[in-house]
């Protein structure tokens, strides 16, 4: 195998892992924002409600 193969594979794998970290961060963040918005729309808050 040529040297180019090892260089390109290194860069591609690194890019994939980093892209994975970014995608995971974005998806997870959106999921939590959505869950929080849903709870708030149901009127759940840290303060106790009357009745």
């Amino acid at each position, binding site marked *: *195998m040529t*040297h*180019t193969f*090892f*260089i390109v*594979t*290194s*860069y591609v*794998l*690194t890019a994939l*892992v*980093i892209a*994975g*970290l*970014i995608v*995971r*961060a974005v998806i*997870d*963040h959106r999921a*939590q*924002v959505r*869950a*929080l918005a849903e*709870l*708030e729309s*149901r009127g*759940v*808050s*840290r303060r*106790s*409600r009357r009745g």
Partner: protein
Amino acid sequence: MQGRYIVHMIRELANPTRFMTLSGTLLPWMAGLAVLLFGIGLYLVWFVAPADYQQGETVKIMYIHVPAAWLSLFFYMIMASSALGTLVWRHPLADVSQKAAAPIGAAFTFICLVTGSLWGKPMWGTYWQWDARLTSMLVMLLVYLGILALWRAIEEPNRAARAVSILTLVGAVNVPIVKFSVDWWNTLHQPASVFRLGGPTIHTSMLVPLLVMAVAFTLMGVALHLSGIRTEILRRRVRTLNLLEAERLDARAA
């Protein structure tokens, strides 16, 4: 005076709401700067930096392998200091920071091992060698994976944080072993050539692109860390509200 200022700053940041505001402003700038530096760094690596007189073009792997290795240790240090923050000072953001750092550190350790392996094959003639540097780095990845598994194994966040903190501090023994393995033992891996007494032994034409890439990796790592902390704070709010809702429904039913 300065010490008091730092303590004050850390205490101010302990307030999650204040942290959310500040990190929300900072995050896009850091991410933008990281992208810019990656652009400059990759340009230097691919079009300016020379080939090595012995290694030829494979030296290009260095520009991702070395920053990944630094960040692997950097994130472990963040986790270890957060672990102290959890166990000693009960800082409310410490365990959140620790939890957010673990997957990022693990990913960089993985990148370091894989690119090192892909560099080893054409240069050393083997993908893997059980030498001190390579083995201690593999142990590093296993410690990271152990920490990630422990976070998942314990449901209640505060209990999980204490257990993980202890494991993190025990695992910190490995950090100097990784760093000094190349000096303490006779390894196939080369010794340090950038952060060493007497200055770097690497030529400027390669040192500059390497440092640019290292700063780009670090900024991106820190941006990912901040974003992870923000998400974790939200996750805990969601958890608290879910528990409160369940309690209220119970009380109403009773």
